[in-house]
């Protein structure tokens, strides 16, 4: 792992007397490789290494009796600081509070809608799930089955009376029902889309402008690669993301996309998905994810 690798490097370097700035740079080559292997974005790695190097020089790692330990601490602290803390959901507003989920295809939005619904129902919110994905085959049924499994009501999108309902009408009708039946929290599941798909990004923008959601959560696969930066930036520029949910963290990916996303849009990572069950949902902890990324 990284700390034993750094120990080896510094042990080898100590053999040649006092450490130099160049020695620090060479030791950081291993860190750079490790971060790239963990899928942290190329330019973010560059900046991270530069900051760590300057901190190391500033904190006189070269004169330290335990340079590798000090180096690892600097690296870990920098990573934890960048990843930030979770923040609570903004659900203090006058009901119904509106939560919108958005992200790439297959990232886990529909499943996460169910997880969020279960999580909020356990803290005594009365949740209403809204299927606004009108494209994917059986997407509406998928959310209905999820709602049924946890006893959460689901808006009947595109029923017999409204077979061609579009997302704006779906959300408006759902809000009307929520107000009528005193549901205090609406969770809107949307279709997966590419950030470079203008018409579909405009569809989301329209939902945001019309309904002003209290939370717009970017649902991202924790296994994303280098393009995570581009995807996150575009979703944030278009919608003003209020928080991030990382999914499939129960896999064995190092999850460097978490750092790429946080650094790029600087919005809190609020939750992580850790499995396919609706109870596989946890609050985000930066220190745990930092450990993973650093391997």
């Amino acid at each position, binding site marked *: 792992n990284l700390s034993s690798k750094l120990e080896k490097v510094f042990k080898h370097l100590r053999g040649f007397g006092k450490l130099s700035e160049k020695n620090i740079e060479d030791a950081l080559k291993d860190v750079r*490789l490790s971060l*790239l*292997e*963990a*899928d942290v*974005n*190329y*330019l973010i790695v560059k900046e991270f290494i530069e900051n760590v190097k300057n901190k190391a020089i500033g904190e006189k790692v070269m004169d330290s009796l335990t340079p590798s330990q000090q180096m690892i601490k600097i690296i870990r602290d920098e990573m934890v600081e960048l990843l930030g803390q979770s923040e609570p959901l903004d659900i203090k507003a006058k009901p119904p509070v509106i939560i919108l989920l958005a992200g*790439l*295809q*297959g*990232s*886990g939005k529909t499943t996460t809608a169910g997880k969020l619904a279960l999580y909020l129902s356990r803290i005594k919110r009365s949740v209403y799930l809204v299927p606004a994905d009108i*494209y*994917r*085959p*059986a*997407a509406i*049924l*998928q*959310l209905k*089955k*999820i709602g049924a*499994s946890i006893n959460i009501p689901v808006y009947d999108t595109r029923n017999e009376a409204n077979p061609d309902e579009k997302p704006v009408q779906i959300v408006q009708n759902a809000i009307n029902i929520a107000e009528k039946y005193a549901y205090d929290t609406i969770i809107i599941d949307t279709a997966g889309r*590419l*950030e*470079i798909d203008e018409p579909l990004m405009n569809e989301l923008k329209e939902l945001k402008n019309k309904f002003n959601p209290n939370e717009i959560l970017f649902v991202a*696969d924790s*296994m*994303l*690669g*280098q*393009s995570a930066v*581009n*995807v996150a930036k575009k979703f944030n520029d278009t919608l003003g993301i209020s928080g991030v949910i990382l999914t*499939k963290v*129960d*896999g*064995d*990916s*190092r999850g*460097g*996309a978490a750092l790429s996303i946080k650094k790029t849009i600087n919005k809190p990572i609020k939750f992580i998905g850790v499995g*396919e069950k609706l109870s596989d949902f946890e609050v985000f902890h930066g220190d745990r994810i930092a450990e993973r990324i650093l391997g």
Partner: protein
Amino acid sequence: VFSSSKLDDDYIEKIEEALITSDISFGTSNEIIEDLKKMISKEKELNQDKIQNALKKVIKDKISKDFPLIDFNNKKTIFLIVGVNGAGKTTTVGKLANFYKNEGRNVLIAACDTFRAAGKEQMEIWGEKIGIPVVTGKENQDPASVAHDASIMLKEKDFDVLIIDTAGRLHNKKHLMEELAKIKRTVSKAAGISPQETIIVIDASLGQNSIAQIEQFKELIDVSGIIITKLDGSAKGGIIIDAISKLNLPVRFIGTGEKIDDISEFSPEMFVDNIF
């Protein structure tokens, strides 16, 4: 993107950035740069086009292996479609079934995702869309038993091709990988032939974990090929360079969208052009 006519350190760094941000591994990016240097060292006069073309050729050489074609020589051919959650398997089964139907083959689909909410309904809707029958089971029925029924149908009826959709699963979940191995064994027994193609579906937007996925699926259930999806997105799918050159697996098709015709046979030329 590149505006230099000699391979100096700045240019090399720009090239490294382009390769790594395409999700090509660090090691392979370095190999590509070393091969590039060798290739152009023989050139007397360098210019930007020559360097660009040499770079494309170096990458193309790595992914242009001669793999045998998919073997349709048996009377019956079976495809087992596998991969992690959300990669695009169900959609790809629909596209692939339609592709082979257009080649005049008699295709049958097995909806063996009996686990995920609306997993089988999603496959059924695809089947209706393309006019191909879909064998299904009840919710939470053992997927191996659905695979068994489909295999019997393949054997006894006039179908040439069976394509099996399976539930998404992360490769580090041992019991789920064993479930997949059991599905494969059940098919071999019931159909009398082992699935000729076990294809892993890889999402182009994912990073280096795709390599771990391919390695694990290969080790635990023996994969014969790859389909990479979502290449219509901003990601370049660079991990397939290692998949082809180091893991020695062919990329059979690429997915380029959510519609039925958004599938095409892999072309090393087009893949490399898309990176730059």
